């Protein structure tokens, strides 16, 4: 079953542990500059949004790659980079609508989320589940539930206002 990263920015506490564990698990070093996920912050408003690759179905990074270095992994369904082919032209960085492709000035390569081969560490370490790894068909389940709750609350309130 295809699983995806679900980001619920409202739950994010802005601690950036996801950035830390991403860089440690991929590179053995602590350095957010090497992380594939980044928490974008508006600190003065208390708003934090973790940004990472969405593994788009119709991925612009795949279409734009001039040397076909980016492709979809047929087994797991996520977008992968073949570093044998990648020429580091950064076209994918330019077209990504989420800015999820990073260019590492340290290694001079394009980096992106590879879902840690199926066990994404960011989701594993995020206690509040602002980043979660769930099956794609359940992506909107919690939102549905929240909306349904609001609806039922509204109906209950309405019933109180206009008794039969």
């Amino acid at each position, binding site marked *: 079953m295809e699983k995806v990263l679900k980001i619920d920015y*409202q*739950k*994010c*506490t*802005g*601690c*950036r*542990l996801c950035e*830390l*564990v991403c860089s*440690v*698990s991929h*590179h*053995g*070093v*602590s*350095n*957010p*500059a*090497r992380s594939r996920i980044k928490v974008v912050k508006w*600190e*003065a*408003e*208390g708003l*934090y949004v973790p940004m990472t690759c969405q593994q788009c179905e119709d991925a612009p990074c795949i279409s734009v790659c001039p040397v076909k270095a980016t492709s979809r992994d047929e087994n797991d369904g996520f977008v992968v980079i073949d570093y044998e082919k990648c020429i580091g032209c950064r076209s994918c960085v330019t077209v990504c609508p989420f800015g999820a492709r990073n260019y590492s*000035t*340290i290694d001079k390569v394009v980096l992106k989320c590879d879902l840690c081969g199926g066990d994404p*560490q960011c989701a*594993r*370490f995020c*206690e*509040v589940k602002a980043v979660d790894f769930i099956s794609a068909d359940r992506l909107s389940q919690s939102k549905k539930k929240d909306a349904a709750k609001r609806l039922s609350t509204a109906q209950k309130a309405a019933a109180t206002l206009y008794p039969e």
Partner: protein
Amino acid sequence: MALNRKIAYIDLSTGKIETKPIPVEVRRKFLGGRGLDAYLLYNHTKKGVDSLGPKNTLIVSGGILTATCASATARTHVMAKSPLTNLLGSCNMGGFFAPELAWAGFHHLVIKGKAKKPVYLWIHNGEIEIRDAASLWGLTTTETQWAIRKELDDEDIKSMVIGPAGENLVRFANVMTGIKNSGGRTGMGAVMGSKNLKAIAARGTMDIKIAHPIDALEFNKRFIDQITSAKVNQTQGTLGTPFIWGATNSWGGVRTRNFQYNQCEYADDIEPERIDEICTETMGPHHMTGCFGCQVHCRAKYKIPTGPYAGKYDEGPEYTSQGAFGGEPDCKSAETVLTGNHLVNQWGVDNLEIGSIIAWAMELYELGILTSKDTDGLELRFGNDEALLEMVRRICFREGWLGDTLADGGIPASEKIGKNSFDYLIQVKGMNNLHSDERATPGLALNIATASRGSDHLRSRPAIDLYHLPEAVLRKIYSNPVPYDGPLSSEHTEYIGKPWQVFWQENCYMAVDCLGICKYHTTFLGATLPNFEDWPKVLYYNTGLEFTPKDIWDIAERCNNIERLFNLREGLTRDDLKKGDTLNHRYFDEPCLRGAPDVIGAKIDRKKFKKMVDEFYVHHGWDKNGVPTPETLKRLGLDQEPSHLL
């Protein structure tokens, strides 16, 4: 790797900057963070330096584990001689500054001299630059941080700054990073101000190589599970530190009206649940936020709901803000607590000290020791919210006779005000007490009386005293890593065994401060949290250095003794009311009037207290006057200090 983070010596008078590696032998003796800071302070200042003069040395650091794959290692430590106490100045804050400093290549900054005009430091990937801060002078703490980001065109810059209070040399001005992370105590902001140093900005992308990354990652996961499984941390993660105020206030353990009472009655509007409600209303259900890499996420985000500051965003308010703007001045409105918290964050001043000193002034006013002539007509009475907030402003900007007087701290102010005003000043070593009331808990009273930076609840507090854990559990905690078979009591009102608990906690908190970890991740408010046996592992996986739990205990003891040596050199004497290990007379003479049955009538017994201090000194290997004996110094390898290894 973490061990190749350097130390930088910066002379603001000459502009000379020198960087050096930190030898492994020094790490083995002092680890890093607060411990190494204490060593540097002792070695880089001379006896009796003017705390606001160019010869005072300001030390800024991250712990040895900061920015590694160890949970919650975001603490920044700042040390210098304190302008408030003229003894050890030391403060510790969370946020994101220390990790950024580590990624920029540094663990310790030793800042000397005084710049001719306002400057700030810009630290970027191993380079340090002294830059002009003329345009930053006068800005609030948040404005300063934003202006630096704009000037250097990088949103990810983290800076540690002072606000107007620091510029105005308010002797309890703090240093701030982020919206509300503050190194509050002992006036380190005034030291920065005295050096014309407005800010230290850092940004780094340098790798910190983890010695054993897979093990470090897995151990971190175990650590996190241990930390989040503790009920106390789950509560902190929902209500933040205000939950402590809620608990201690209902029990009768907070000081109100400057020690006249020990409970704030009819204060529903400032109870933690009400504050949580306001946070939920203004910021939504998920309104908690955390420091770097932390799962406890103990601070709340809020917008001030009503009043002249309505709509302003801030974080907190902490336990201390509830005391400072609620309990102590006997104000009972959430709006006042949230606004007060916002003002001190923006102007950069210690909320605890300012709340405490204003409450003192309020009592003096009600007693007639201060008159409306002194206050320029301000009705400085308990429960007057407007007067409280106005006084905060006057102190931060040194306005009016009283504002200027109080800005110099309690003891100088009491000397200026005269009469018997000093008798009402609730302080230890010149620093005002937290708003907690320790009369029913002798162990905690011993803690504040003997803490190295003056009255302090984060140096050696055996806070689990209040949980009434079975004695067998206490013995398990307090007999490790050093065997202890002396008396222990799970009764919080007892005196026996408490000196050992305070001594043990002192070493425990020192170890945590050296590592750079937050205290909520050790035996502070929860008995099951990480401890001496866990730290060797986390140190080994991250840095490759091998230690035993006893090694870490010894390091902590060594660092505590260095702090003691510093204080003794600056004139600490045991029974001195202004500079010693003792308490205000009200602790001994006035019993608690409110609270639970085990609190009402409680006061500290002078004789038993003296015996506790004696015993506490014996555990340390100090003589009757609290001076480390030659044998103790030799055992800890401190007999050659100052040794100038760095």
